[in-house]
């Protein structure tokens, strides 16, 4: 599976499936953004969802599958009652402690040479979502990300 496969589950529910690979996250994001535009979400809201989904999907490729190609993952999006719910599923390694990272802000007050080059992902995910939940069952990780659509 080189490209993302989209299945319309309901009027405002879409499932996008893909396998990890160099540009797989981009392919899924492109599909997702097109759907969100079709659902007429405000531009600023789409921007925030874009940031969060990119981080969540990159985490699947990097951590759940350790940069291995061919790992199956999916994005399930539902728009209902002014709320967007996105569920990211994979069959890779679960979160170490069984819970997603806290995403503390990184320290930027040191000298230039000690500025962090990473550690921003979970901070942005937590900052931009209304709430999130994680579940691991039957070898499947499911990260649910909710957004208020305003």
């Amino acid at each position, binding site marked *: 599976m080189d490209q993302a496969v989209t299945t319309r589950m309901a009027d405002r529910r879409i499932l996008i499936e893909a396998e990890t690979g160099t540009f797989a996250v981009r392919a899924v994001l492109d599909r997702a953004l097109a759907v969100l535009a079709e659902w007429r979400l405000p531009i600023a809201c789409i*921007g925030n969802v874009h940031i969060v989904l*990119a981080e969540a999907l990159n985490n699947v490729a990097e951590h759940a599958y350790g940069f291995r190609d061919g790992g199956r993952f999916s994005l399930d999006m539902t728009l209902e009652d002014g709320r967007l719910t996105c569920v990211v599923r994979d069959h890779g390694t679960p979160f170490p402690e069984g819970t997603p990272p806290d995403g503390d802000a990184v320290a930027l007050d040191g000298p230039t040479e000690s500025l962090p080059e990473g550690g*921003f992902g979970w901070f942005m995910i937590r900052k931009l979502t209304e709430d999130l939940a994680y579940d691991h069952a039957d070898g499947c990780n499911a990260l649910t990300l909710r957004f208020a659509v305003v």
Partner: protein
Amino acid sequence: MDMSSRSEGALQIVTVNARRIDAAVAIQFKDLMRAETEGSARRVILDLRQVDFIDSSGLGAIVAAMKQLGAGRRLDLAGLTPTVESVFRLTRMDTVFSLFPTLDAALMAQAD
């Protein structure tokens, strides 16, 4: 990923000719920036007007590009599109870099 560059004395302008700086190209971006900024320009302006998205890997690569310039040289950012600007503001990286809405605004500002 494609980049282009021009120099005017102590100033160098590097333009990113790509829609995204993300995990797929972060390492390539860092390497290209190292090659482009091998000169001695004291101020490098990174023109991001064509970039409509960066993720945390892309942000990390821009931080790395600034660090590899070394002491006495600075990296300023120009032409930030809305989502790119959001990422800088959310992570408070807007306190580390000087952000300019356009390349012209960056050129007008004193390089101090």
